[in-house]
């Protein structure tokens, strides 16, 4: 319904405007309806401004900035209506160390709402996990879950 989408859109937009500066350590971003007169069919645009930079076409952002902007939006939607679990497959691949740390801290803060499963090649993300499942192929082409390391109380 028209009212329903408008309400969700506004709430998600509000959350997005809070999450973005947390992940970017500043800056601002918001969602905009392409056709505010036509709520039932309008598309949704993203405007984003990393700290100190000017508001520009979101396509001019760097690979890492685009990924972090997308993650901000995904987390904003998630905050409105958490799913019982969240599976993120290598979303940290384009991020630098500082951004990976902020991303992982935010995942930690969301774990009161949901279980998070992060597939990663990144050592910092691995350090943030409570438990690590290792997948290997001792026999070529045959997957095996082999190591389950519990995070040592630190």
């Amino acid at each position, binding site marked *: 319904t028209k009212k329903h989408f408008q309400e969700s859109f506004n709430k998600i937009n509000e959350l997005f405007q809070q999450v973005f500066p947390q992940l970017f350590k500043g800056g601002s971003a918001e969602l905009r309806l392409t056709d505010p007169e036509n709520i039932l069919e309008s598309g949704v645009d993203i405007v984003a401004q990393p700290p100190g930079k000017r508001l520009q076409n979101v396509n001019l952002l760097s690979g890492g900035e685009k990924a972090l902007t997308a993650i901000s939006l995904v987390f904003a*939607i998630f905050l409105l209506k958490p799913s019982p679990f969240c599976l993120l497959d290598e979303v940290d691949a384009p991020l630098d160390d500082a951004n990976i740390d902020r991303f992982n801290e935010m995942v930690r803060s969301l774990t009161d709402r949901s279980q998070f499963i992060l597939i990663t090649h990144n050592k910092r993300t691995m350090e943030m*996990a409570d438990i*690590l499942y290792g997948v290997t192929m001792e026999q070529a*082409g045959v*997957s095996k*879950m082999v190591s389950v390391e519990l995070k040592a109380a630190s």
Partner: protein
Amino acid sequence: MKIKRLELMGFKSFPDKTVLHFQEGITGVVGPNGCGKSNIVDAIRWVMGEMSAKHLRGKSMEDVIFSGTTQRNPMGMASVTMVFSTEDGRVPSAYAHFSEVAISRRLYRSGESEYYINQTLCRLRDIHDLFLGTGVGMRAYSIIEQGRIGQVISAKPEERRLILEEAA
């Protein structure tokens, strides 16, 4: 409904029965390129009712059945089971007296499919209804597949709207 565990057998690169226990908090899944991590994501999508082979990187749904290696023969069936706990009480009344709800999906090379809830044969639609009722459904923002995060940015405004609608 919290997820307790996932069981795979004959699914993609997991010919032998494999059990993945879900924990509270953050679970990291690691391993070399091609070892099977993203196949676990595919297994979760599949048991939740994914009907498009393309979304599982395949040409046809038969591609999810273990197709063998240079040392091992292909298998005839893929099976995935996802087990939920009902302790939080958020479960359809039909299953309220169970402590666990297990959803299973099987696919045979013949093309035949089977679906189970707590080991009882059911229709795919019963699984969809169960997920709908509990809000555990597969939403675009609860599973972000490898390489897909950028699509939130590059998507057309109309496509992006669809992602928001799933939370509305």
